[in-house]
């Protein structure tokens, strides 16, 4: 591997932040390994290991489907599938947001000890959450079979939606990671907000039967991200409003996040 001379000065900090993001991507071996290591540790000595994710997701869906059925009204699709998809996406986004608020602080051991791109830890966290979502999605597969729900070609629209979701997750973690490393209240604030937002996001209920709450729910970015994946899988089509919202949100957020990172990357090590 050729080694180039590395020059560090105060003036190069912004370029270094940009190259950090890219260098992190190229070192994919390290963040996939770290993510798998995290999961191995979390389910260490558990006989069925990661299948606990599937099992607890399954139990949650069964109970919630029975309890919240009455909020569904009359639907053209299965409420259980609606609920399972919504909760899967919520769980992923919630994981990304809460991990993001800790992403650099919890990696201080590495950041202070080894010269490596800081974005590594963002990618690590995304992979970890994706793997968990993958295990949960086994339940979706079983549910689709059980309910006899046939997917139409329109369901393929969920694929670009997932790409946008992962892209957004990256900048969300980057931004929250920086801000919460500097201001330690942010992590607690975010946990509180996420707990409230869960009830304001159409996961357990369907907007059309919730009156005012249903009308305002699409101000909430989480609701729109859920719809661009969930609607195509349920109905084969998706309202273009959700896509426009999501694209604007994603692009604007990415710009803000990268700018914040450019100005703060070199200081993060002192904050953690």
């Amino acid at each position: 591997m050729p080694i180039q001379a590395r020059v560090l000065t105060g003036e190069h900090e912004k370029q270094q932040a940009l190259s950090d993001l890219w260098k992190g991507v190229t070192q994919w071996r390290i963040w996939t390994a770290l993510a798998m290591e995290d999961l191995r540790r979390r389910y260490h000595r558990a006989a069925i290991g990661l299948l606990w994710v599937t099992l607890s997701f399954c139990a949650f869906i069964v109970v919630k489907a029975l309890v919240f059925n009455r909020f569904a009204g009359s639907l053209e699709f299965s409420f259980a599938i609606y609920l399972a998809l919504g909760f899967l996406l919520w769980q992923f986004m919630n994981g990304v947001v809460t991990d993001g608020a800790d992403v650099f602080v919890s990696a201080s051991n590495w950041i202070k000890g080894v010269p490596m791109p800081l974005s590594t830890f963002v990618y690590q966290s995304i992979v970890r959450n994706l793997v968990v979502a993958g295990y949960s999605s086994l339940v979706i597969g079983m549910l689709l079979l059980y309910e006899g729900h046939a997917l139409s070609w329109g369901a393929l629209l969920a694929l670009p939606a997932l790409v946008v979701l992962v892209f957004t997750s990256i900048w969300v973690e980057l931004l929250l990671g920086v801000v919460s490393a500097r201001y330690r209240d942010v992590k607690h604030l975010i946990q509180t907000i996420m707990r409230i937002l869960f009830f304001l996001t159409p996961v357990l209920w369907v907007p059309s039967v919730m009156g005012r709450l249903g009308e305002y729910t699409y101000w909430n970015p989480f609701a729109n991200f859920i719809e661009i994946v969930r609607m195509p899988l349920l109905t084969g089509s998706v309202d273009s409003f959700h896509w426009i919202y999501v694209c604007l949100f994603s692009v604007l957020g990415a710009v803000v996040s990268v700018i914040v990172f450019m100005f703060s990357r070199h200081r993060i090590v002192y904050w953690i």
Partner: protein
Amino acid sequence: MTHLKLQDVSVAYPVFGSSRTTETEVTETAANKPIGGSIRARGGKNFVVALEKITLSLSAGSRLGIVGHNGAGKSTLLRTMAGIYSPTAGSVSVEGRVGTMFSTGLGMQANATGRENITLSGLLNGLTRKQAVEKYEGIAEFCELGSYLDFPVNTYSRGMAMRLSFAMATAFNPDVLLLDEWLGAGDQAFRKKAEARMQELVAAAGILVLASHRLPLIRNNCDDCLWLEHGTVKMFGPAHEVVAEFRDSTKSGDAS
């Protein structure tokens, strides 16, 4: 060509959670003792100026020791050389693969086993998983930890963790080896072995920078020595001279 150059490097960092609140701009050090960097307060915020205007140039074959009291800036200087801290002013230029060994537990996954950590450090050094696994034998042999490598690192003693850390830092043919005082945690047999490994790396056109409170370690392994005080260069010169001066100053300091 391997080199490590510092030009007028200063590093100042903010301190949070300090009980000091000073509104006016002041600069002070720890009550006329050679401990710590200088503390600067500006607008109610405290900064520690850990390094101030350090200029250094090391080329292939250089062996530099760093001495100084607690908080004189030794670790900050090493981290700045490694690229972990970026200089507030001045510039750092490094050419070559950098190997680091800083304080206990840094750069390791504490709940992972020694074996897993070896794989991770291989991946960090740009190897594939297969290549990293191939490095295992050599590292295991050097650190002599045997079956302990299948135990989590947080069950290791300080000396054992140091053995693993040193073996990993030197296993991937670093051109620039940066070592913090921790090396003192090893027993004598391992220290001998570690010193031999350091010399090998320097002989292969590498650079060694070693910070330690163990003066004989510096004298035996370094050609030049930098004495830091309050983040500035107090003295720079041949290792035996600087070490002798530094020792005299600590002795007279103890007497007072």
